[in-house]
């Protein structure tokens, strides 16, 4: 009997090397470097040598400065404001779109393509269009609200409404992507479940809540995890829509300042790479905490029985 003997590491290494090298150079080394930098006050301008690290060493000083200041908590609350609005709305809209895409009717293919176009649009182009759509005086949304007799808000110029404006833009951009993931989940549900339920006299609502949602819950869990991580990493929308050259970033009055924007600003505008690295590790801690929490909570609502 001719059996292929596993070659072990020596045989696997050439195949692993390209990816492993990429991981090492572009992820692991920068991760380690940023951890080291977070313990210094390096400015990001001088050439980084062991002498520079020694001279700028502050230990946990940067973490103390960030956690002890009001800015971190204000920025975190801005991020939560985004999450509270964005996560339920993106889940609802993506689920609605995916159910429409799942209908087997003529022309649904066109609808599937159309719903995915925003995902393919660049953030810069999309955000610029939404800046116009949200313009208080000349924007499409306030025009429509005006026709209905409602005075529209100042959107990106208003401290309360700027973040909802960013949420609307993000919904438009992301719904198609998450709808596609959910569509995969929907198409994995066997029609026999619905047929049996119909024989038992179940209506659309019962089928949705008793069959679709439980069987889709593993995919929904994935979507919740991704949207939450994406929410903490909110950035391009802020830089394009509420940051103007020459003004403080995250307008108005810092209402749209978020974690990644702060990291960028401290690192590349204020030349405080050490402090920016501390912000980055705190962001990592926050994301890890919430992801862990989700994994714990999933036992209560995610069903893997199907």
């Amino acid at each position: 009997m001719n059996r292929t003997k596993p070659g072990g590491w020596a045989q696997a290494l050439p195949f692993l090397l390209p990816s492993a090298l990429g991981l090492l150079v572009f992820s692991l080394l920068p991760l380690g470097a940023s951890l080291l930098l977070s313990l210094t006050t390096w400015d990001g301008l001088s050439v980084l040598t062991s002498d520079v690290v020694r001279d700028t060493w502050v230990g946990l000083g940067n973490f103390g400065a960030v956690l002890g200041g009001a800015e971190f908590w204000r920025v975190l609350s801005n991020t939560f404001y985004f999450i509270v609005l964005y996560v339920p709305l993106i889940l609802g809209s993506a689920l609605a779109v995916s159910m429409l895409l799942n209908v087997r009717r003529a022309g649904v293919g066109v609808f599937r393509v159309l719903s995915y176009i925003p995902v393919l649009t660049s953030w810069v182009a999309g955000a610029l269009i939404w800046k116009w759509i949200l313009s208080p005086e000349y924007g499409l949304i306030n025009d429509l609200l005006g026709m209905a007799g409602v005075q529209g808000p100042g959107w990106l110029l208003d401290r309360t409404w700027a973040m909802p404006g960013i949420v609307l833009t993000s919904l438009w951009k992301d719904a198609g992507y998450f709808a596609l993931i959910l569509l995969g989940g929907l198409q994995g549900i066997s029609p026999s479940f619905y047929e049996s339920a119909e024989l038992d006299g179940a209506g659309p609502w019962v089928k949705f809540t008793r069959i679709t949602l439980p069987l889709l819950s593993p995919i929904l869990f994935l979507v919740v995890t991704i949207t939450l991580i994406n929410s903490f990493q909110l950035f391009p929308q802020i830089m394009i829509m509420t940051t103007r050259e020459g003004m403080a970033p995250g307008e108005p009055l810092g209402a749209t300042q978020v974690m990644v924007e702060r990291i960028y600003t401290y690192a590349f505008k204020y030349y405080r790479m050490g402090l920016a690295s501390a912000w980055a590790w705190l962001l990592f801690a926050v994301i890890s905490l919430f992801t862990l929490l989700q994994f714990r909570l999933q036992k209560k609502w995610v069903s893997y029985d199907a």
Partner: protein
Amino acid sequence: MNGNRIKNALAVGLALVAGGLFAQAPVTISYMNFSGAGDMSPNLTKMKEAFEKRNPGIKVNIETFAYADYFTQLQTRAAAGKLSDAFELNYENFVAYAKRGALLDLASVGADTKGLAPKAVEAFAYAGKQYGLPESFSTVLLFYNQALFDRAKVGYPNSDWTWKDVQAAAEKIRALDKTIYGIYQPVQFWEFYKLVKQNGGSLVSADNKKFTVNSPANVATLTNIVERYTKSNVSPTSAQMGGVGDWDLFKSGRLGMIVTGIWAFNEFIRDCDFPWDVAVEPGNTARATHFFSNGIVVSKTAKNAKAAAAWAQFMASSNEAANIRLDASWELPAVTSPEIMAKYTKAPVPASRWAVYESLNYLVTPVVIDQNQEMVDILNQQLTAAKEGTKTPAQALSDAQKDLASKIKL
């Protein structure tokens, strides 16, 4: 014997060819800049060609980045120890690089500041050393729409005007139509540092050791400019602007006055279909005008420091570069040559172009510190709060003072 002769002849020939080759092998220097981006790119190429013609042994390899990307590029290269031989810095960012020892003292390679505007030369010196040469500078003027002034029956601005005259004119122009505004002057750091000087105030103490942002004179200054938006509404609020740019508002003929930089000349000449002119910006208790400048510096680690310094010198003080700059209306060359100044003021529009040179008599430089952008952002945030009416000017400046004192080292 013959063989030896041939060998010798060959050796001499080879030596001559090699010597000739090496003598003529040009030195290539790298130059990174932002001001040559977009429309100005052909003018920068003309300068490079003129320089290379004058210095056949030196080639310039130009790298241009948009302003928004430039400083991130520069920072990354500085951190990697791979700065270009020569590069452009604006006055606001100059200190950060000079202080960190990234720049070469240009006096050590024979740079000459003769014939350059002293204020601009001073701007690129740090700790007694000349780390940069100013290539251009610019200022801000009061631009006004003569047609709207005529309609409102108001006399044109002149050198005696003060804030009161500006306000009176702005109110009359605002009264013409609900879509017409009197004046636009942004409420932000780069205006405010100068406005406080126009009112006898300052953002820092005389010894530059502490912030004096919330002094009574500064509160009065901010109140004056904020009330243009919140009280008399001679200036359009953000909602009234509705995303339209300030220059576009002026070009559309709906703005009586705008305080903006002389870099607007080309665009206004091209796009305004009404008569307009400029005046030195009026002050209150004193006159104070803007100073912006771009300079060329040489990296301390430049391989060809002398050649890079020669390029900086050419860009700053040569007549060729100055003329190309003037022909393109690309800011103002930093040279003080009478011919260059005469050429600049000779252009027909705007008629009072001499105001550019007059305003140079009142130049005030902004505070430039190590944590410059952070300071600017803190102030901008509070100034916007006052402009939007969420804080009183006194409260906004008091909060700015507290924030600056706790975060910024002077």
